């Protein structure tokens, strides 16, 4: 199987900050995503991975060499301008 063959598919790398970083120093973790999913759905899947508190407010940040970009929750991954291989930080 070749997940990335499908044009709608991408792989993204995420991490929950700052709690996780401070204690464990973890790097990004990988997951499969879809260009047509909403950024909110993506956020929920990330929070599920960490079993994190869904009632908190989170900032969703896209890391780029040129600088960070804030990602809003009511758009698709494609509309947000995400690319295959992107690094995302979820900040409580």
């Amino acid at each position, binding site marked *: *199987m070749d997940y990335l063959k499908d044009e709608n598919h991408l792989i993204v790398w995420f991490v929950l900050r700052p709690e996780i970083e401070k204690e464990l120093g*973890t790097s990004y973790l990988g997951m499969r995503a879809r260009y047509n999913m909403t950024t909110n759905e993506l956020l929920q899947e990330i929070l599920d991975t960490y079993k994190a508190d869904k009632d908190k407010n989170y900032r969703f940040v896209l890391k780029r060499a040129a600088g960070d970009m804030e990602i809003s929750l009511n758009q698709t991954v494609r509309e947000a301008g995400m*690319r295959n*291989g992107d690094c995302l930080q979820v900040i409580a």
Partner: protein
Amino acid sequence: MAKMGIKEKYHAMTRDLMWEPKDFDMNRVYPLIEKEGIILKNPSRWEDPFRMAYNQYVKIQSEKDGIYHAVRNAFEANDGHAKVVDSRWYEGVKVFANAVQPAEYSAHRLMAYVGRNIPIEAIRFATFNQAIDELRHAQIEIKHYAHMSKEIDGLHAFANTSQNLWFNTVPKSFFDDAMTAGPFEALMAISFSFEYVFTNILFLPFASSAGAVGDENFAAVGKTVQSDESRHMALGMSALKMLLEEDDRNIPIIQGWLDKWYWRAYRMFSVVSTLVDYYPRIRPISWKKAFEMYVEEQVFNGLFKDLRKYGIRLPKHAEDSIKEKEHYSHVTMRILDQFKHANMFRGFQLQPDDYEWLSNEYPLFDEYYAPFFRRNDHNVFANASPGVPAICQVCQIPAEFPDPDNPTKLWTQYSEYNNKTYITCSPGCKHIFEQEPFKYMQIWWPVEAYLNGEFGEDPVAGLFKYIGLSPNEAGEHYSSNEHARWLEYRRHLGLDKKFF
């Protein structure tokens, strides 16, 4: 008539033996010599300090082997493995077995490549000697763990593991990187940075640790392998000097290679810091002290002082590696601990004496690292990562190295290339990536391959099938069957009794 001395004999056996090709352009016979921009004016000046002819080489190597195998035989015949102070030591030996032996093997190809492509007589015999030495090392190491495999887990599928385990991409990519460089760069990569700088720490302090915990077999492996390395180092050192003296235009090229390969080898050796600071229960030396001795003293304050006259300065990120001294082994052990459920060598629960030594030797350990390891005290998998990690695009280690000036923040760097974001673990790796992004964008990344579906849909079962091992060969050492078997073996030999 006067008898020939060693120097004259060596000269007669190795010099002026190759005829100049009259019908072919030298650059067709040696197609790679001009590709790196290196200028050679008078290669006949080059000298190999070891100056060994064939019969001397085989006599010496044969004696070395005889000496080593006698030690190995005695150790094996006398249940040596049961007599080490703590069986967790063998998890460290597995790291070595799994990562170093394929590196040795691939180094033979690299040296053959160098010998074939550089038309300098003085180094020809030396490079082929080295190619055979590397095969010698690979075979000694396989023989060593063939026996150990009767008692310890994780080694029985070593060829498969070398091919498919995520951890192995670290040493493999280093050698692929060197082998796909030009022949002069390859020689500098291996003979200088790998052999001269870092194999000392691997084979000597680690051998010392082996001796301290009672693994005389492994101590002997270290010393016999490293005795060949002396010859390799000398080859690299004399090549380095000759290249710098041939022409001033070589100097910036060499400096660029020293910058790249110092940092590249330094990151690859990160796991060795854990073999010195964590795996041995009795520790004769720390990574910090070994680094100070072998890298700061012998390399920065020794070799690089001597190279100043050519206009060479310290490697670009030398200062960063010095700053990381206080952190290196702890950070690396932390990374390994998070993924010990999915690796071919286990982690282990730190014991009170471990915490004490680490705390005494490293002033920052209690504040920055002890809390992490303490989480394992009641649940050995408390720190297991909930997912699969992003790695540095250059060194291929999970990008979890902290900024030593600010250890609660990671040092992760971001680069833009070809409409994609690439991460590296540190400024050192970022610099390497940005010099040759087209090279590093081509890596094979097991985690990405797994996410893409390349080894099935079941994360744990799929991974273990892929590497040829079973999940109970991973995890935590003291709770494993391997440790239980070791205790039982000792009971059987009467070693569980304490007489003093």
